């Protein structure tokens, strides 16, 4: 078996006296969809924050393609191919859908050379073309010129995914991509996730167990900051520790 894409070794994150993530060791192989599940406050989002550089781990290591990334800043981690989408809508609400995505496709075409200060931004036409392709993929091409704040809820959630996708990630971390959606929207989003997983590795945080069991190849279960189980959907649904965590018993 090849090396994992992402591997954590005894990662711990403490905020003062609160241990949000405790001694988590897991590995995510390249390709496919993995899910992280667990009750609220289990440390799932904190784990994403550690992977993406929002927080540095208190202890332990995080390796991406064999390279330590724990404690790097967010933009350094994005440049290595890890990007996340957000549970809450977190975009540029005053800009159009196209420009939202364009800022992301522009990122790896922009630096601090003379050109980046002197030429007109519209001359980065390949960034615009790529942004349109991304909008097409997430189903928003027909609202490309609409201000993000004016989009419908489901459209906003797809724009959120589109922005992440536009950075052309190898590993896409998605925080509850279907939260708050109706059944129809949920289906569209699930198809989108499966489509994305064709050429990138996807890790989901998801509460909807039907989705998790249907589309995940691997599942990791967290509770109170700890990793309590990992395995295939079939294994996880049989796991007693998981059932206890979800039922709240001891």
């Amino acid at each position, binding site marked *: 078996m090849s090396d994992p894409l992402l591997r954590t070794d005894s990662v711990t994150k403490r905020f003062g006296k609160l241990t949000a993530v405790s001694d988590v060791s897991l590995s995510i192989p390249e390709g496919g969809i993995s899910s992280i599940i667990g009750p609220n406050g289990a440390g799932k989002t904190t784990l994403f924050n550690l992977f993406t550089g929002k927080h540095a781990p208190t202890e332990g290591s995080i390796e991406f393609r064999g390279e330590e990334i724990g404690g790097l*800043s967010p933009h350094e981690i994005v440049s290595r191919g890890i990007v996340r989408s957000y549970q809450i809508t977190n975009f540029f609400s005053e800009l159009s859908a196209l*420009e939202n995505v364009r800022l*992301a496709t522009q*990122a790896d075409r922009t630096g601090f050379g003379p050109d980046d200060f002197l030429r007109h931004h519209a001359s980065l036409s390949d960034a615009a073309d790529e942004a349109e392709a991304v909008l097409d993929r997430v189903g928003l091409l027909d609202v490309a010129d609409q201000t993000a704040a004016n989009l419908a809820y489901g459209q906003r959630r797809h724009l959120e995914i589109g*922005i992440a996708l536009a*950075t052309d990630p190898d590993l896409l971390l998605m925080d509850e991509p279907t939260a708050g959606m109706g059944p129809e929207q949920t289906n569209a989003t699930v198809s989108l996730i499966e489509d994305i997983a064709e050429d990138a590795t996807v890790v989901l945080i998801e509460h909807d167990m039907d989705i998790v069991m249907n589309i995940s190849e691997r599942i990791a279960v967290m509770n109170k900051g700890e990793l309590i189980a990992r395995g295939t959907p079939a294994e996880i649904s049989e796991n007693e520790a998981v059932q206890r965590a979800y039922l709240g018993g001891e």
Partner: protein
Amino acid sequence: MSLLDAFDPRETGSSTDGILSNRGRFGILALIAALAVLGPVASAVRPFWLYLLIQILVFALLALSLDFVFGYAGLLSFGHAAMFGTGGYAAALLITHVTANALVVLPAAVLTGVVVAAFIGWFSVRARGIYFAMLTLAFAQIFYVIAFADLPSTLLGVETVTGGDNGIVGLATLETFGLLDLSDRMNYYFLTLGLVALSLLSIVRLANSPFGRVLQGVRENEDRMAFIGYDVRRYKVIGFAISGGFAGLAGGLYVPFQSLAQPQLLNWTLSGELVVMLLLGGLGTLWGPMLGAGVVVLLEEQLSGFAAWEVILGSVFVVVVIFAPRGIAGALVSLWEDPEDAIGNVRDALANYREKVMK
């Protein structure tokens, strides 16, 4: 002023077409041409007016430099006097001790502004919002005290460097290898006009560049910019340093013109006045704050005989913020776009004000 109406309303830069439409560009060129004619005319009618025009141009440049970071990149600098003042002091020191050649003095003022802004920015961009504002204010006051107390003279063990609270006085006029006689105020006016025009065009260019777009994204959502791969802190420091360069240039033009560099140039009162110019003129429009600077300088000049002229400035400020929240620029644009609607809006605002406040 009517020519200014021709600016594009989408000046907040959220359109793909860029910060100014062709109409806006034409407006800028027309205004520059108008100012070029206005100078000699004003001077012929009343020489003092030319002095006032230069003053307005310098502060318009300073307001422009601040708007580039304040309105466009969302960096709320309350210490922009630091770059203006240090640029000015750099000019004064060069003229006193080295050379009065404008080709040395002005680039040095720019460079000083860049360096000081990079220094302040480096420490301040770690904080955000009001904390960033307070840090820039604190840094600016440090520079003020350094100049006021003439700290360099103590450190260097010489009699005087900054001249303490008197400042550096009796500066020689700038010279340009004899190409342009800058002791002639008309020539100084044209030099200033040319440099201000060049600065405006450069900043518009910058605002429309990929770099400018990133700054705008930072203003909108700083965190997300980091999480799609931008080194936000670096962008902010560089944006701040660029802005500082233009502020330094304003200082470098102002001090030789006044033949005086004094600590007041570094004081928070000037930084505060600058913020008023921005809000009055229209934040984030680049050209609005330049108008705001004109209004403030004119008011100050006309009313400074009146002991409490700030009361009038304050009242104007309050009226603009209540009835034209997007500033003079916003009001002009909506008047141009849809006069009836604009007047209706003011009427509504008045009615609203009566209902909510006066009751």
